[in-house]
């Protein structure tokens, strides 16, 4: 585990010693702040439902900015040669990096808590629904990051990594909408099950379903395992 921790610490140092982290957090907070104010003033209802929905889509474009550099930057700086020749197993590199990116996500999520202050001061929101929304948001973010990290391992160009990740995430987000065009029940279920947004919708409504939790965790696990296997195969 010490290898994972060393990679994690290095990742966190790299985030905060470059402008990326500050920039991503700032843009994310600006965006979510705008969604929050817009929804509150437009609907006049003191909930986070609409805000979470907007934050979810926003995440499809923000997480690739965090994940695109995870491996691409290592390839282009030739530091992958160091990582792969140090006493580290590929899964340790993958997990350390993922935990670093997940910490960034948690930090961003925690920072959106500032929106809750006026909500609780001037309204009467349902705490359990908000908590469930946040759980869903974090799980959704983790799944997006794991996929982004996998695509980052496939290319040494960060822009290409982001350009692969964004359409894949948006595709998985909107694939739920294809459901209504299907006559076959099996296909409807399938498109519903692989949709990032439909599972997230449950959390926003206050439903913490084990099926949805398992879905996001399975996406993470598949992406991280493929990521490790790819690094091993690259040798």
């Amino acid at each position, binding site marked *: 585990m*010490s*290898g994972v*921790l*060393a*990679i994690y*610490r*290095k990742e966190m*140092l*790299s985030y905060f*010693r*470059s402008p990326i982290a500050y920039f991503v957090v700032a843009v994310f907070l600006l965006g979510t702040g705008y969604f929050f104010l817009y929804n509150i003033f437009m609907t006049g209802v003191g909930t986070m439902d609409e805000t979470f929905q907007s934050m979810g889509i926003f995440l499809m474009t923000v997480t690739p900015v965090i994940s695109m550099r995870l491996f691409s930057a290592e390839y282009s*700086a*030739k*530091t*992958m*040669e*160091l990582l*792969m*020749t*140090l*006493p*580290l*197993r590929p899964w340790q590199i993958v997990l350390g990096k993922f935990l670093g990116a997940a910490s960034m996500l948690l930090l961003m999520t925690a920072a959106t808590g500032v929106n809750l202050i006026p909500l609780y001061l001037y309204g009467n929101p349902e705490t359990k629904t908000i908590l469930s929304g946040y759980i869903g948001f974090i799980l959704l973010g983790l799944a997006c990051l794991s996929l982004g990290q996998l695509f980052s391992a496939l290319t040494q160009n960060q822009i290409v990594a982001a350009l692969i990740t964004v359409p894949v995430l948006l595709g998985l987000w909107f694939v739920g909408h294809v459901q209504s065009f299907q006559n076959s029940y099996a296909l409807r279920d399938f498109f519903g099950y692989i949709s990032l947004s439909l599972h997230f919708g449950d959390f926003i409504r206050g439903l913490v379903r084990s099926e949805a939790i398992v879905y996001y965790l399975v996406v993470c696990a598949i992406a991280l395992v493929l990521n490790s296997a790819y690094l091993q195969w690259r*040798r």
Partner: protein
Amino acid sequence: MHPAVQLNSVSKRYGSRPIVHDLSFTVERNEIVGFLGPNGAGKTTTMRMIAGFTTASAGQVLVCGFDMATQNHEAARKLGYLPEQPPLYDTLEVSQYLRFVAAVKGLQKSEIPRELDRVMSACRLETVVRREIYKLSKGYRQRVGLAQALLGSPDVLLLDEPTAGLDPGQIQETREVIRSFGAQHAVLLSTHILPEVTMICQRVAIINNGRLLAIDSPASLQQASEDSNNVALEVTAPAAELEQELRSLTGVLAVSTHPVPARPGVLRVACHVDGGEGAEARIARAVASRWELHRLERQQPTLENIFLRYVAQGEAKGKGQQ
């Protein structure tokens, strides 16, 4: 005890393109081996296979007895590796970077500060400890790369062109670091700089087109090339007569003369002689008895000549096989 590095019939191909063919050699403990070859000879690929960055397509790479194909993790613990381009994280400070590598190498938290001091003083990095790596000059970057390889005193040190980009003073210091490290550990050092090999390596491996052409001590390689010695002289004499005289001497294989610029009448002569005894003495007697001899010296074959000869022989052999 296992050799520090052992290659058994190692080959590497990328797709259908062969890079390294059937390479076998060993590096013993407490030995510095120089790895010589022209660009594209397969040096970096071989280094990468030993370091575990790429796997061999065929054959076996053993580091301290651990098979790189199946015991990569154990072998990596025995290795310090400086790739051709130092693998550095530009946004980190030098000490943060070295601390990261030390932690991954499994050094105890309590021993890391001491170990950092040791490698930073060996590589003369004390003045840039707190500097971000992107602000460092090429020479310092190279030395930070060397410092990370030295961390944890690995049993085997692999250095791919460690003195590239350094100024003469830094080259001297780096050689000293490698020499002192090699007194107790195994070092495999790839380089283009031939005098470097003669200065610090106990043995030299010459490689071209992915094939090992020779491996021996620099002195033995030079000895083996004694038959291709040259004798150089400067004489005031008529060119045709001098050439005729020299060609008639026993042991002289070929003669070429060139006038010395700004010294009218003086010729610079290169005599290609065989390995027999007394060639210089015969030439000196013959020339001095008739003309004015200014200078005469037997030229030892330089490692450069030996290297070029082996490379040329290897290419000729390769063409013959085709």
